[in-house]
């Protein structure tokens, strides 16, 4: 390696590390699946808001492309966040809360997302490289959504509220993820040629003490 290449490599590594400066509750941000258009994340310590811009074909099928802001966690916990899309985009652009086994594009994951058209959905890939499973919930148009995701063993429970209404339990599914896992916020434009920006506010991550019995 020449001195110049060494220096370049060092600077690039330093730049990647610099991405992890102040991300509030989270420790890292980056693009999963190497989308052509790069994403970005800005945390405003004064308001506690995350402004996340993401591109990518989709979070779907056997591989994902999106911007991810995450931290590592183990055990049971609750994540809440309120999100709003800025600007227009694909009906199925996505923003939400994701639990993920790894940063691999075909990693196992479970998430709760709001689509650009307002449709809430639960998605999960049970094993690496498998097809995404999804269940979409009824909706009545776009808005500002509060999301709550509870991890309790293999159970993922979600609650939702639109435009300031009280949180309402929506559904529960099961995904087996091995501790530690990645927990964070996602934005995907559902279009490799576009980016979407989403503001997340009132974000909270609360660890829960007790493991629960297995659902049957």
């Amino acid at each position: 390696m020449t001195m110049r290449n060494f220096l370049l490599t060092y600077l690039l590594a330093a730049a990647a590390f610099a991405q992890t400066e102040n991300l509030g509750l989270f420790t890292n941000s980056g693009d999963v699946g190497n989308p052509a258009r790069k994403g970005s994340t800005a945390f405003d310590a004064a308001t506690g808001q995350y402004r996340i811009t993401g591109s990518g074909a989709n979070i779907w099928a056997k591989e994902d492309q999106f911007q991810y802001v995450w931290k590592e966690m183990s055990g049971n916990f609750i994540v809440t966040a309120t999100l709003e899309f800025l600007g227009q985009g694909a009906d199925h652009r996505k923003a939400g809360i994701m639990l993920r086994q790894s940063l691999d594009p075909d990693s196992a994951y479970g998430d709760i997302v709001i689509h650009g058209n307002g449709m809430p959905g639960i998605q999960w890939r049970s094993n690496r490289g498998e097809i995404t499973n999804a269940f979409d919930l009824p909706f009545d148009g776009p808005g500002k959504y509060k999301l709550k995701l509870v991890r309790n063993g293999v159970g993922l429970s979600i609650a939702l509220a639109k435009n300031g209404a009280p949180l309402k339990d929506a559904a529960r599914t099961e995904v087996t993820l091995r501790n530690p896992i990645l927990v964070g916020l996602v934005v995907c434009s559902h279009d490799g040629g576009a980016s979407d920006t989403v503001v997340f506010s009132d974000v909270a991550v609360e660890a829960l003490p007790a493991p629960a019995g297995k659902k049957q």
Partner: protein
Amino acid sequence: MRLLLLLCLSLRVFAQTSSIGAFTSFTDVGDPPVKGSAEFDPATGQYRITGSGTDIWGKADQFRFVWREISGNFAVTATARFLTEGNDHRKAAIMLRQSTDTDSPYCDLVIHGNGMPGVQFRNNKGENTNTVDFPIEAPGAFKLKLVRQGATITVFAAKGDAPLRELGHTSFQSSGPLLVGLAVASHTQSASNTVLFSDVSIEQLAAPAAKKQ
């Protein structure tokens, strides 16, 4: 004499697989030790289905299945009421299934004994069951509706006399003709569970729908 006995036995077997209301066949999937049964009352249009079996869950299922073959797009409705006490997670369902193999791909809309609606599916033979459960409404008679349009399965439920409410939709890929029918499982091998299905209808739908992404 022996010939007559054989003839009678085969007639009896044939009778078991002859039509039962809107369906053509019934069987225990997964060979549960306690055998199930199914009766159709033409006067009321009601099906009284008794099923045992560990569960419809994991990688293999045990339950009573009353079914017919179907292709294309369609809507199935049925009102299910548990007639017996039992496990909280005993199940009554409208099920689409690739075959009567115990580990067959399937997709169903289920009501549990405790009043929890759920959608379950196994994408490929021998794989784990995927599940989505909805908030529990306490036990009662539940009207269930499952609509298949291409790979999209949309489900509706209502308790008592409430109007049908959409729960949402999922994707279920399948090939060729499917089995469609009613399923009952007791969630334990040592018990049976009887469910009364009424207002059962199967309506063939014309139009294919756009693929969900």
